[in-house]
């Protein structure tokens, strides 16, 4: 699996209230949530984002609430992958559980800039920055996580487990 697109770059400690403010949590409709994604720090995000684009951020991305609405909003906005130095743990598991691939890579997080065109190979963990002609290597997914990815998220994993 591969992802390819232009980069939206954010800083440290991007919390779930930034990703999707609580005032919009009275719905679970992914399309509706996507419209408000990042609006408090980047009000044009939804207008500018195109299918396949990639978010790159620094440390502790997704901290705060357990709301799955956060990765759901990001995914529904068209984002194909998130790369950060580190993630808050609930966001980390939520993303895999709903099928939004996310990678940890300090070098990529530091060097990639807003607007860069990059591509990501999930099998190898290789991140190619076309704009800068640089390659960064992310940690490959742990084996257990790979199982969840292969089952197309936790829903598929549990379906298999329940034998449905």
């Amino acid at each position: 699996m591969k992802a390819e697109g232009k980069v939206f770059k954010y800083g440290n400690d991007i919390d779930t209230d930034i990703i999707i403010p609580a005032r919009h949590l009275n719905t679970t409709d992914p399309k509706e949530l996507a419209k408000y994604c990042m609006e408090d720090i980047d009000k044009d995000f939804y207008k500018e984002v195109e299918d396949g684009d990639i978010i790159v951020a620094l440390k502790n991305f997704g901290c705060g609430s357990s709301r799955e609405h956060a990765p759901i909003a990001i995914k529904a906005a068209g984002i194909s992958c998130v790369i950060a130095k580190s993630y808050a743990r609930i966001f980390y598991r939520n993303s895999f559980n709903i099928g939004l691939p996310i990678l940890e890579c300090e070098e990529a997080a530091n060097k990639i800039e807003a607007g860069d065109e990059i591509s990501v190979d999930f099998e190898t963990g290789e991140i190619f920055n076309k704009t800068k002609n640089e390659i960064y290597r992310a940690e490959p997914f742990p084996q257990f996580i790979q199982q969840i990815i292969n089952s197309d998220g936790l829903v598929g994993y549990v379906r298999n487990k329940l034998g449905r």
Partner: protein
Amino acid sequence: MGMTMTQKILAAHAGLKEVKAGQFIEIDLDLVLGNDITSPVAIKEFEKMGSTKVYDKDKVAIVLDHFVPNKDIKSAEQCKISRNFAKKHSITNFFDVGQMGIEHALLPEKGLVVAGDTVIGADSHTCTYGALGAFSTGIGSTDMAAGMATGQMWLKVPSAIKFNLKGKPGKWVSGKDIILHIIGKIGVDGALYKSMEFTGQGVKELSMDDRFTIANMAIEAGGKNGIFPVDEKTIQYIKEHSNKEYAIYEADEDAVYDQVIDIDLSKLKPTVAFPHSPENTRSIDSVGNIQIDQVVIGSCTNGRIEDMRITAQILKGKKVHPDVRTIIIPATQKIYKQCLQEGLAEIFIDAGAIISTPTCGPCLGGYMGILADGEKAVTTTNRNFVGRMGHPGSEVYLASPAVAAASAIKGRIANPIELEREV
């Protein structure tokens, strides 16, 4: 190699003799929790999983607390999904308006969590129950769905930071000040993926309510869970609230920690977290002159009876500042009733504050006290992110009930000691 307290509980619930930090395991769950925001998403996923039945109708808890009594049509529709689901699956522990309270204050009060349990909740502050010596952690809605369907959850075994508490906290220093101090020291990702294990002589100086407050905010340091050893206070609390059997787990003497941090409770001062991060803390002596528009005393962090009593102690016979809207929210129906019985409610009203039915309301900028652009609030809640209580241009200062109540009177962030001097 020795295990931490958390690792012991996890090993027992995974049917393993030993677990190591970093290992992926699947554990059996004693309780799966969701609220009115996260449950509807979980219910959808639960159905997609092909599940027709929850794994144990007594081990699922659904609490409608964020946007109830229904604040608008959309939240009414959301709540309806949870209500229907709870009926359909005969969920024993479903709490709606009239029964409900803020989930993390309610579950311990109802005796649904005891020492040694494993609890997951589709709410980040599920880590609160570590105060009881349980493993509890926040997860997302899909995890909640899987938990309801299978009674199990996958996780990576965490390593731990040990907080060695010593000494006795001074007057006006509460659990809130201790945890704010710790977050200020280690940062919002200081305990990322890790357990925060609180031990040491100082633990016995802390009431159960203090411990709930401290464990509650482990997530604000990035922690997977926060946990306290089980002592006489814990056992007394459990016996008063629950008939469930409890189990005591202790860290091995040779348990390995990533870090050991000593905290002398006697040196701490009331502490305030400035906008827009819980790690942005200052001691009360260095807050400066910050005029405020609103005070909120409540939430899963500080809406318990001790918090109400301290608030009343400070507000008694005084008036809140005319420019400060003061909103007091007892966290559960029981605490609300105690406020009435103990005469606290009267003190609040006479002081010019309002009392609300239990709700998360303003804590997450839902309703019941939303801030306008440029407004400032002192609150006893746990997050002061941009826009958390309303307009992205508003500001939230996190503090203890004592500091919040004193600030309500003064119209600016204030030290409760100032009021003592005036008497």
